[in-house]
């Protein structure tokens, strides 16, 4: 019943979104004089800058043609946008992308010797391969970020990959950074938060990276016998993944949650509920009843975990924490409280529908407030991807780009700390990083990076055309003066670094 109501609501909104777009399109077609108008609507520039990794050649014009609302709507329903064949081709060249977590372990993990643990040399070889597999995952992320028309979806994938960061390289988890993204993040990046939370919690990469696989209580005759609690993941889950650092959790909640999550293991399936390298071992699970955030969670085994995750996902503190973070990511380091409150309200009302929360954000007045335009500094990831997009390049291999990104201080799947790379843009404005940004711009513009196609250079004029009002006249003049270095000057300019 609720599902049907939701569907109706969604449909109404969808129609409301497309209709003005269609009307606008008709308007443009009927009055051709307006189409030749000089500079695009600043609201369109803002939407393209924030809902995508930045405009490529012709993007601003396309969005103007389709209309602002229709553009936002199309980005909110990425499933309807077809991936370009060239991108599919480039991705097909990365064999590990086709493998799920279990298969990756079989193909690249330590060889199973009859009844023996893999030796240290076998593990070293596994880690050799893990680096290559992780690089393929990084390449895939970059290729998609550059060429996929599902730009908002790509931005959200990046957002959640950091939010649910696996932290510094750790054992087999490193082999699975890509399968984690594909299996636990991508399918739910714009869906229900609870689904996303559950998928990340049960994924072998998270279980190993955040050590929940070690979190066990040994049983004897149905009773807890010997405890080996490892609350690292439970603490992270409360303080970062859901309620946030300022949440209502107490130390006792962390411990209760750790007990709830005991017996979550990595290995071959033993029951129907075990999938993708996850299994539940009842013999290593604490059977007692627990109290989490004031709510009693009956000792029912695996079901306790589901109940606990639901409690966390539906908690108002979680809504506030996530909505604020999303507003920081998409709008400003210091988002207005009323906007965050409205987003959190949508979150609560829709049962944590990320798509609806984003719709609230992108249709808010605050989102288009002139004071936020050009107020963010690009993260290195955004700088690299936006630069390649602005040049209109279609990379066949992104190894050099992934390496350049590492050099700029943001290697993919390698963020230390609990929450991956910072969402706040002030973090990316450190003096030592600035010259690296400029050097990268020069390397890219001069065609010094490999894998970007045969003619990987572009004129300053073409770049300026793609970027439109993002560039000030001063930058365009400086680029014109710089001759052959013009494109590099634009990509290195403060105007390009801001969005």
């Amino acid at each position: 019943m609720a599902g049907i109501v939701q569907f109706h609501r969604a449909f109404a909104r969808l129609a409301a979104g497309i209709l003005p777009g269609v009307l606008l399109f008709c308007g443009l077609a009927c009055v051709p004089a307006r189409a030749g108008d000089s500079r695009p609507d600043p609201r369109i520039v803002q939407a393209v800058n924030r809902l995508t990794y930045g405009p490529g050649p012709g993007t601003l014009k396309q969005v103007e043609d389709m209309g602002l609302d229709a553009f936002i709507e199309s980005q909110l329903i990425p499933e309807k946008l077809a991936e370009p064949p060239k991108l599919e081709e480039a991705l097909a060249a990365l064999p590990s992308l086709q493998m799920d977590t279990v298969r990756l372990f079989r193909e690249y993990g330590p060889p199973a010797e009859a009844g023996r643990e893999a030796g240290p040399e076998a593990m070293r070889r596994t880690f050799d391969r893990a680096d290559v597999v992780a690089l393929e995952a990084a390449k895939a992320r970059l290729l998609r970020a550059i060429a996929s028309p599902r730009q908002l979806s790509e931005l959200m994938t990046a957002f959640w990959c950091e939010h649910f960061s696996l932290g510094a390289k750790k054992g087999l988890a490193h082999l699975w950074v890509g399968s984690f993204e594909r299996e636990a993040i991508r399918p739910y990046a714009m869906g229900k938060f609870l689904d996303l939370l559950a998928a990340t919690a049960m994924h072998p990469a998270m279980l190993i990276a955040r050590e929940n696989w070690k979190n066990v209580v040994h049983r004897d005759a149905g009773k807890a016998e010997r405890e080996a609690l490892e609350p690292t993941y439970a603490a992270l889950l409360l303080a970062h993944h859901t309620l946030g650092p300022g949440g209502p959790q107490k130390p006792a909640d962390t411990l209760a949650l750790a007990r709830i999550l005991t017996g979550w293991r990595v290995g071959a399936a033993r029951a129907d509920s075990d999938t993708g390298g996850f299994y539940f071992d009842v013999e290593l699970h604490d059977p007692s009843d627990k109290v989490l955030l004031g709510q009693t969670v009956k000792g029912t085994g695996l079901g306790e975990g589901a109940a606990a995750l639901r409690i966390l996902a539906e908690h108002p503190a979680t809504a506030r924490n996530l909505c604020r973070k999303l507003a920081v990511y998409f709008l400003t380091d210091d988002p207005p409280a009323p906007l965050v409150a409205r987003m959190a309200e949508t979150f609560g009302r829709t049962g944590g529908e990320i798509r609806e929360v984003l719709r609230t954000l992108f249709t808010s007045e605050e989102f288009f407030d002139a004071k936020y335009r050009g107020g963010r500094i690009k993260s290195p990831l955004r700088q690299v991807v936006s630069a390649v997009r602005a040049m209109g390049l279609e990379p066949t291999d992104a190894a050099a780009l992934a390496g350049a990104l590492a050099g700029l201080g943001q290697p993919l799947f390698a963020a230390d700390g609990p929450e991956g790379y910072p969402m706040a843009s002030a973090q990316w404005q450190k003096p030592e990083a600035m010259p690296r940004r400029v050097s990268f711009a020069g390397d890219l513009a001069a065609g010094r990076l490999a894998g970007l196609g045969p003619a990987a250079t572009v004129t300053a004029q073409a770049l300026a055309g793609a970027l439109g009002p993002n560039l000030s006249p001063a930058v365009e003049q400086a680029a014109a003066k710089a001759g052959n270095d013009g494109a590099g000057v634009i990509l290195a300019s403060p105007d390009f670094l801001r969005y």
Partner: protein
Amino acid sequence: MSRGDTVRRRDVLGWLAALGALGLVPGPALARKAGRSSGEGKGEAGGQGREAAKAPWRTGRQLVVVLLQGGPDGLSVAAPVADPLYAFLRPTTALPADCGGLDLGRGFMLHPALSALAPLFASKQLALVPACALPGQGTSHGPALAQFAAGTPAAQARRTAAGWLGRLALALAGERSQMLVASQSEAYDGAPHYTMMAPGRGESLPGLPVEDQTLFAAAGRLYGETGGALGKAFATGREDRQEALAKLLEESRRAAGGAIPAPHFAAFGQRFGRELAKRRDAALGFVSVGGFDTHSGQGAAKGYLADRLRETGQGLAGMLAGLGSAAEDTVIVALGEFGRSARENTFGGTDNGLGGVALVLGGPVAGGRMYGEWPGLAGHRLAEGRDVAVATDWRDVVAPIAVRHLGLPEKKLGDVFPGFTPASSPPAIVG
């Protein structure tokens, strides 16, 4: 051979005078020795006769060490193009797999600028050893050169000890051991005789390129106009960068000090080879070539390092050509005091690093292949997380050559390389 020896010994002073005109100047040790031998006359000759009888050196066999000073980039000389991590670590300095370099096998490619060496690899007179350095050594030029010269990573502790080439000379032929050198080095300190062949005048070494100077100038104006936190961050960052860059450029200039500039070596190699061919009484030769401390603007298939490698390749191939038929009895080992960082730096260059590459050339070489283990480029394999790990001790390259080729008794290896324990199965580059 022995007749040539006699003639030379009798005319030693006149010979020295003649060499002076040719640019061959005796080193202080030889001058001292020459002075003494002219005074002692016959007695000396008799003494040497007895010495010759027990000298282990197989007369006419030569080992020439070419020190590629500054630390050449092993990942460019023998590029691991088949490793997917290579392009990741080297966004602007990796060699593309299709740039025309020779396939060395095992996933490696010879830098296309070393094309002068490609025929030697095909005719099995060139072998390469990746990930080669002195285990436990450092990555600052001064200490590393001292460690290279001493042939032990404990060089700092034994400052007074002679160089390993000096000790090798003594171990091979005692007091009458001869050596032909073209550069100064502590490596042959303690050698009883050496002859310095002055390289004469030649092309000097160009400075390292800095690719983005004009870009920084233009960006500097724009960020200046922008001001604010961003403008300030840029100004500070740029100033620090300029300072760091200036230091690196100065370091790079110094790192080539005392060595023959690579552009000069391109032509000098052959002259040195011709002289080596004439000097079959010299068991050892030494020359150092400068220009490999590529902290900035290294380039890839083309560029600064490619130019230095082309010159080096021409010089090495020229040396073999100059040796002529004597190349059948000569082994050339070319290596740096270390290698370079696996990751490129922010200046489009590479920083001093551990594992480098050794090239072994000459008639006696069982070449046409790569020797030694390759640790790979995975993060956990890199030394300190940044350098190619050392898989082959260069002494394990040199020691078998000294033993099997020059005739050094195995038990004397400890005299040449104090504290060195040879690997159980060192690369058998020389049969």
